[in-house]
């Protein structure tokens, strides 16, 4: 499949009063056409910075130290502001986290949806408005025609997020970046918005980068998952692999802290400790202080990526050939078992 987006060895730091914060430390991933890649991680793990760098919308105190971001074979980081402006909203577009603040309060919503079309395709006002109305109906905004000239504050949160999605989709972007698009919404609306995104992806064949800290949402929408911790991708694989065959202790912790119907524990697990200070990133594995399965080498050396399968790799010394056998938490063992079952079922199916 064609690769839409390739991020290679990206390193980004921020100048602050306290010093240089190394927010992104050697991140690489790619995005294929039509797939959904979810980036998961806790607050401050660098998810949002990664996505903003895809749009080249980083704050002025950010420095890209190293790496490249290839879109259609061209390095985005070398593009001028004018060239970026042509890409933004047309080829790559973005849905922001909070629909309450990401719409202009003083512009009618119809105009806001139509605007990218007028900027990028020099569409006439009439055409753009017509397309905007169609799109607003497609994203399921009730009474779109009557409400075309209404202002953002006259809509509910879910309706506003539909409008924001319409703005992001109007130019049929090749890559859609969704930065926690459901975080600010309540659960029922969340489900509707996720369904909508899935439907729209089928219709317009967009690749989606989906940022979230909610694993439930990930299970719902992602083809592939990248788990981020302290500015690095610690594990990346297909959704099935991450959910049922997780190999990194941090992924174990994340999955363990997600409530599920099957889990028998009476108390919800929480990963102890806090993420490291990225002003002085640790020499070894950043997860070392919080990791109950840590090896001595974790304190000394950063783990490289070990391949679990062709699509699945994780950065943990536990996968090194010399590493001792570790028994993961019960919850994870169950998941592994399920993964084996799934694999066997697949093999049976393939043999038939």
């Amino acid at each position, binding site marked *: 499949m064609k690769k839409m987006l390739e991020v290679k060895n990206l390193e980004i730091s921020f100048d602050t009063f306290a010093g240089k914060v190394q927010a992104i430390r050697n991140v690489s991933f790619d995005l294929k056409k039509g797939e959904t890649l979810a980036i998961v991680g806790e607050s401050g793990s660098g998810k949002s910075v990664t996505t903003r760098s895809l749009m080249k919308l980083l704050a002025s105190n950010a420095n890209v130290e190293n790496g490249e971001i290839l879109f259609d074979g061209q390095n985005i980081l070398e593009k001028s502001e004018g060239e970026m*402006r042509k890409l933004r*909203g*047309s080829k790559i*577009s973005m849905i922001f986290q909070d629909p309450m603040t*990401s719409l*202009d*309060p003083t512009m009618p919503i119809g105009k806001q949806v139509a605007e990218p079309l007028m900027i990028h395709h020099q569409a006439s006002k009439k055409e753009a408005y017509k397309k905007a109305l169609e799109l607003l109906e497609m994203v399921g905004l*009730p009474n779109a025609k009557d409400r075309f000239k209404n*202002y953002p504050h006259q809509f509910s949160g879910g309706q506003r997020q539909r409008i924001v999605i319409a703005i992001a989709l109007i130019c049929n972007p090749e890559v859609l970046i969704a930065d926690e698009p459901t975080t600010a919404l309540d659960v029922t609306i969340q489900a509707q918005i996720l369904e909508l995104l899935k439907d729209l992806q089928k219709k317009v064949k967009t690749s989606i980068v989906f940022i979230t800290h909610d694993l439930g949402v990930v299970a719902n929408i992602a083809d592939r998952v990248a788990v981020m911790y302290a500015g690095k991708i610690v594990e990346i694989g297909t959704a099935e692999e991450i959910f049922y065959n997780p190999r990194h202790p941090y992924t174990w912790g994340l999955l363990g802290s997600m409530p599920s119907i099957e889990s028998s524990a009476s108390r919800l697990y929480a990963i102890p400790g806090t993420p490291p200070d990225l002003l002085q990133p640790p020499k070894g594995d950043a997860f070392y202080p919080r990791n109950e399965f840590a090896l001595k080498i974790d304190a000394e050396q950063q783990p490289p990526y070990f391949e679990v399968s062709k699509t699945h790799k994780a950065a943990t010394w536990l996968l090194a050939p010399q590493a001792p056998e570790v028994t993961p938490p019960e919850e994870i063992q169950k998941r592994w078992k399920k993964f084996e079952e799934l694999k066997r079922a697949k093999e049976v199916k393939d043999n038939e």
Partner: protein
Amino acid sequence: MLFNKANKQNIKTEAGEPISLPPSGFKLVLKELLKDKFAIFSILVLVLILLFTFLGSAFVSKESLDTNILDGLMPAFSSGHFLGTDEGGKDILSLLIVGGRNSIVIGISVTAISIILGLVIGLISGYFGGVVDDIFMRIIDFIMVLPRFMIIIILTTIISNYNAFTLILLISLFSWTSSARYFRSFVLAQREREYVMASKASGSSNVAIMFREVLPNISSMIIIDVVLGIAGNIGIETGLSFLGYGLPASTPSLGTLIGYANDPVNIMSRPWVWLPAVVMLLIISYMINYVGTVFQRAADARQRR
């Protein structure tokens, strides 16, 4: 029958009908204005004054503004001169109409120039920040420490061919700075809002974001600054004319009329020469200020009643 299954086939995912909507923008300001009886009264009075001065000017005969020593110093309510005449025999009522109009025109022009200039510079400075902001702010700081009245007074005496237009430019030269600062502070706050980032993410240019998105979002501040600015600038013009450095002597204004009060004899025994202009100035300034504060209240949710 009541316990039959209800017909529920078309349940929509979200409420279809718009609920009653809170008023916004100008509607809100208007609502706030209409709630305030004194504000309505103020606006009515201001409209009457505008009609009186602007329409009245059309009916003022040229002779009534000419010097005519024989008719000098007629008291108020004398025949042919409702408000009397000054020493030169000019009709005070005519002077009041034409002078009031001139003062208002100057006040409005100065406000228009300084608001437009202040708005553009405030937007650029606040939106781009950094070095651009620093440069503009240091220039503004510099202009603000200059003693503006002294400079205007000196320049009026230096400039040959001095007329109302040059006076407008001179006052504007100094008054745009406070507007620019005022707007900059709001633009700074707006710039950090997510819709600006979202708009960038959909490919809008900086100029488009500045003028089509940030500008409408600070519109209520602009209205307030315009309204209060007009009152302030009429005051400045009047003050300068009173001191004799405003409009040239041949052009009447509220200030020149009030300037008659410089003469102790006038102030003691000929109130008709200066009193009408004083009253008119007070009414205009007070009413405009009051309307301005109502706008301000309407625009600020915390002060809203």
